[in-house]
């Protein structure tokens, strides 16, 4: 793991550290909200380690706190987390075999995926993915546990603008990809689809619907690609 960390340049290390720190702060408010909603202290602790996907965990707690059935809350959370299916399809194998695959699969989240996608070569991609993934694995639960312990001492962290940090982190990291016109058009269309759907559909679904916009990036196939395709079909 230390060799992975050394692969990262100082700038990238600093960026990942800041992102993990933001995750830690959001974890604080998540833990505090969980306890304030009447859940036992062990619950946000266990959930933050085992699920490790913030938005779905906060939604789960919100539904249970308002009297919802935990199984229904879990299904709503799963809908939010369904975006990990296309994430795992988009990423090359960055984890290696055995226990690394288990752990590496578990630490897949918005932050580790976007940091990996923003890198050029496979070695840096792998290093960024693991460093950010493990950083979130440490920061999210430790923030949640501390927040749960501090409980009512932590008031709404939105006063510090922390809720603006998550979208800003993702935006900063996809920005280089958006300089490509075709990608930018698809991204804007996807954002518009998600925003139009958000008032009507359950959380998670709007972002999945946005995937339809990627079809607009399709270009007419070149002859070479067609030949390659046919070669694959025969093989």
């Amino acid at each position, binding site marked *: 793991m230390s060799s992975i960390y050394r692969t990262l340049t100082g700038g990238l290390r*600093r*960026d990942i550290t*800041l*992102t993990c720190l933001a995750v830690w702060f959001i974890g604080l408010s998540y833990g505090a909200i969980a306890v304030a909603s009447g859940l036992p202290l062990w619950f946000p602790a266990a959930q933050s380690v085992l699920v490790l*996907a913030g938005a779905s*965990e906060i939604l*789960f707690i919100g539904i*249970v706190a308002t009297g919802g*059935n*935990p*199984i229904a*809350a*879990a*299904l709503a*959370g*799963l809908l939010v987390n369904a*975006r*990990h299916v*296309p*994430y*795992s399809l*988009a*990423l090359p*194998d960055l984890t290696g075999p055995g226990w690394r695959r288990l752990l590496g*699969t*578990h630490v897949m989240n*918005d932050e580790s995926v976007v940091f990996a996608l923003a890198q050029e070569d496979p070695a840096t991609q792998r290093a960024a993915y693991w460093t950010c993934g493990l950083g979130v694995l440490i920061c999210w639960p430790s923030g949640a546990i501390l927040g749960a312990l501090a409980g009512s001492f932590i008031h709404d962290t*939105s*006063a510090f*603008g*922390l809720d*603006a*940090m*998550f*979208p*800003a*982190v*993702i*935006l900063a*990291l*996809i*920005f280089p990809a*958006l300089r490509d016109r075709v990608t930018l058009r698809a*991204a804007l269309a*996807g*954002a518009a689809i*998600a*925003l139009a759907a*958000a*008032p009507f559909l359950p959380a998670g679904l*709007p*972002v*999945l619907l*946005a*995937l339809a916009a*990627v*079809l607009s*990036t*399709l270009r007419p196939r070149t002859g070479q690609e067609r030949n390659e395709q046919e070669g*694959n079909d025969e093989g």
Partner: protein
Amino acid sequence: MRDNALLVAGLCVLSAGTFACRLSGRLLRQRITFPPRAEQLLAGGAVVMLAALVATTALTKGHGFAGYARPAGVLAGGLLAWRKAPFLVIVLAAAAVTAVLRLLGVS
């Protein structure tokens, strides 16, 4: 007690299901070699979804509007990203703009 058992059941469903989501694409990739065009679409799909995530987390709260302070902060971050500002500056500026607006009474 029954409440706790249900909670644990919900926790198990969510954590196992989430892990399955994370694993599914990997397993599919081991069985199928995607043609280059499909690879291109898949990578584009991740960026499009992340952009949609930015839009929804910046602008919405539940099924409604999140208020002006948060999207204003994210917009400030976006402008700085466009001007190629360092990551640290982008993220901290987004939080700072949102916090200052709320301090001034803009929700």
